[in-house]
């Protein structure tokens, strides 16, 4: 421990704590630019200079470790002079004219720092060297003229996301941020996660979609969860006048620690599907707008009159509350089948096999944070469930091994220590054989290698890694169909056990696990003559739509027009994910809370309200207690 005195206040801090962080603990404000709480200290901008008793010169507090007995001052004339000088130098380097900058007026940390030092003008004139603007990326604009060379983006890209796209070329005033070895950002290895945009202190990295639409002081912020996949990343939804402006990662979120992928951050900005705004009833082969009352009556009559069996279909983007109400509706009306729109054999197999396990066998996010060896198989986690790939990729510089088993080229190819090419239909058998090698029941690496056309030394290195008894995490991208999905799940569990590894499966959508807990089957066929479908705001693939089109009669709850609504008999318009509250159970069993960030258009109800209206139109009582159902569910991962 080190006892440090800052501006007359004394605090004891852990050894290695920086003076800046000690000051933060004392709630003493030291201005910073290159420093970011989520990133390794860099000491580049020199704005955080402080006076240390006994030191000859001012010291950067962000990289200076507090030592016992250290006496620091942060508010002297000398320091303010130094800060002004540092800021003057930064302003003189590039184009920092404020009036037409996207972040001016509150969102620019450079401008704010100058305001805090009461700077009314620039003592040093700019050098007028023009730099290019890189607008090649679909989501991000890289405006080099606003760059202050703080390298936050470079550190975020490497340390947080593990993608290592961004770096610097040249020296001194010519230093330029580059993607890869000087490619335009849009052609580089950038995955468009936008973390660099979120950490940029100036208007150098700009989000195309939110630029000039509202500053932080002008927008409302709602902390909720992303619905892009089963991870359930914490997000900050910024809105203005009931319009989505921007989505940012929530640094305080336990799951993702502020990271998002392009699907979470940018894709919701380009929602182009046509919205359903009123209930509709099919009459004479055509859908016509109707009142809720009429539509509910038509739907209730259809359900009551239906004698040919009923199938309930839900999207796993609907909340526990909505899925619970829907289950009450299904059960009261004798539904033989309750399906989800996931239609995935492997995900179903995971839930089925968990039923026979004595306790939850899977791990979660925390197991992926500090593993020494990662083994990924199934889907490409750099495409779906991307944030999980960040956790693995960023550990590589610290010596972690990343082993990939994939049938096709994947986004991990450039990162993996070893990539084993194994066909999907052989995956289960391969994992059984690999288990035998790891358990040394079979010592013939050569034979196994030739059986699967693998490189012997590569396979040997995988066996060695799995035998090393290090902290190993298996990431099973399970949203995929295999020829024998159940066998793959069994083999994966077996291999994980033999390597003493933690298995993590990605499952399906955000509420995939929740739907399973309520008894919805992932894969299955539509049975009977009537299908009631809670599609919520999900965008389904064509083949899944075709599967559900098989039902003769359809009652559909949906936010958007799709081919399933086009052929429906009754349609109820429901809110999209940004408009409603609810609870969701993500892939590793976290119960997450969704909060509404936008107001829904007039006649549109939440999934839960809409279902409950039909439930009461059918004279049924919704007595479903989803929390109770979840407790009774044999889950593959502990739910809490």
């Amino acid at each position, binding site marked *: 421990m080190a006892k440090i005195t800052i501006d007359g206040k004394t605090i004891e801090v852990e050894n290695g704590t920086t003076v800046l962080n000690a000051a933060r603990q004392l709630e003493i404000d030291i201005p910073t630019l290159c420093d970011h709480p989520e990133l390794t200290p860099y000491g580049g901008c020199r704005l955080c200079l402080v006076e240390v008793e006994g030191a000859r010169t001012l010291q950067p507090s962000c990289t200076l470790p507090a030592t016992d007995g250290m006496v620091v001052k942060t508010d002297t004339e000398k320091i303010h002079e130094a800060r002004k000088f540092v800021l003057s130098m930064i302003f003189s380097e590039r*184009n920092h*004219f*404020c*009036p037409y*900058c996207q972040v*001016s007026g509150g969102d620019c940390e450079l401008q704010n720092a100058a305001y805090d030092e009461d700077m009314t*003008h620039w003592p040093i004139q700019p050098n*007028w060297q023009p730099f290019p603007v890189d607008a090649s990326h679909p989501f991000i604009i890289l405006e080099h003229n606003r760059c202050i060379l703080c390298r936050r983006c470079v550190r975020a890209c490497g340390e947080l996301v593990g993608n290592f796209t961004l770096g610097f070329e040249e020296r001194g005033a010519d230093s330029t941020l580059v993607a890869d070895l000087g490619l335009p950002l849009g052609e580089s290895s950038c995955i468009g996660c936008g973390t660099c945009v979120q950490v940029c202190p100036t208007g150098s990295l700009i989000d195309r979609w939110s630029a000039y639409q509202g500053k932080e002081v002008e927008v409302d912020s709602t902390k909720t969860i992303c619905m892009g996949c089963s991870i359930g990343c914490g997000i900050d939804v910024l809105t203005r006048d009931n319009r989505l402006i921007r989505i940012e990662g929530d640094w305080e979120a336990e799951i993702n620690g502020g990271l998002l992928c392009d699907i979470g951050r940018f894709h919701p900005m380009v929602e182009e599907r046509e919205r359903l705004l009123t209930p509709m009833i099919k009459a004479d082969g055509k859908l016509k707008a109707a009142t809720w009352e009429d539509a509910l009556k038509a739907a209730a009559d259809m359900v009551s009159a239906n004698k040919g069996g009923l199938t309930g279909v839900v999207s796993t983007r609907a909340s526990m509350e909505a899925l619970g109400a829907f289950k009450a509706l299904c059960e009261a009306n004798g539904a033989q089948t309750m399906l989800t729109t996931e239609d995935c054999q492997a995900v179903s197999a995971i839930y089925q096999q968990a039923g026979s396990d004595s306790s939850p066998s899977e791990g979660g996010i925390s197991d992926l944070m500090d593993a020494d060896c990662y083994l990924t198989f199934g889907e490409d986690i750099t495409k779906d469930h991307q944030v999980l790939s960040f956790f693995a990729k960023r550990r590589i510089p610290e010596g972690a091994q990343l082993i990939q088993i994939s049938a096709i080229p994947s986004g991990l190819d450039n990162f993996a220590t070893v990539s084993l090419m194994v066909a999907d239909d052989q995956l289960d058998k391969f994992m059984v054989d690999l288990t035998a090698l790891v358990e040394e029941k079979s010592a013939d690496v050569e034979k196994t290698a030739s059986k699967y056309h693998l490189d012997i030394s590569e396979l040997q290195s995988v066996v060695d890694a799995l035998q090393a008894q290090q902290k190993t995490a298996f990431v099973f991208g399970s949203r995929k169909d295999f020829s024998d999905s159940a066998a793959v799940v069994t083999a994966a569990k077996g291999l994980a056990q033999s390597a003493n590894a933690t298995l993590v499966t990605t499952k399906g959508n955000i509420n995939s696990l929740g739907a399973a807990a309520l008894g919805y089957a992932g894969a299955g066929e539509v049975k009977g003559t009537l299908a009631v479908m809670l599609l919520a705001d999900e965008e389904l693939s064509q083949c899944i739509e075709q599967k559900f089109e098989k039902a003769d009669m359809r009652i559909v709850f949906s936010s958007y027009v799709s081919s399933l609504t086009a052929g429906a008999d009754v349609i109820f318009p429901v809110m999209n994910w940004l408009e409603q509250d609810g609870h969701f159970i993500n892939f590793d069993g976290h119960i997450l809370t969704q909060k509404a960030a936008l107001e829904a258009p007039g006649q549109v109800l939440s999934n839960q309200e809409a279902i409950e209206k039909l439930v009461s139109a059918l004279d049924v009582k919704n007595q479903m207690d989803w929390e109770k159902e979840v407790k009774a569910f044999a889950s593959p991962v502990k739910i809490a």
Partner: protein
Amino acid sequence: MAKPTVASDWLGGCAGCHMSILDIDERIVQVVELVDLRATPITDLKEPDKAGVTVGILEGGITNTYNEEVAKRMRDRCQILVALGDCAVFGGIPAMRNFFTIEDALKRAYVDTPSTDDSGKIPSNPELAKMTIVRPVHEIVKVDVFVPGCPPDADIIFYVLAELAQGRIPKLENNNLMWN
């Protein structure tokens, strides 16, 4: 005691800062009660009194040799010089041409613009002032009060004028300090 006198002039700017002075609306009455408003570009008297004024206000940056002269004349004739607006304080939007050569900027303005027909040519009358790199006023003459903003808010201008009228030097800080 005689009222303090105030004169203003504009350089390479857009007149927006003077419009922002007018945006103080009826408070202008309070200002003229306290000061003697002399030459401005929007009144009949254009040049500051040779006898000198208490406060000189300049809008716009230094974009040519004529702006230099006007700035020096104002400095010579006033006790307190105020740089009003982002162009006077930083160079502002006209300073964007500094990222190009003057030749390119002129060519763009007089020849290359889509609205210019084939007769477009760069004016070359020797009477015209010589264009220079665009600089803030304080690069040419000493400035006493910097009032950034594009344009500065009318409330900020009123605060500045009110302080000066009462013999104080305004301090631009907190909510009164805005660069854009």
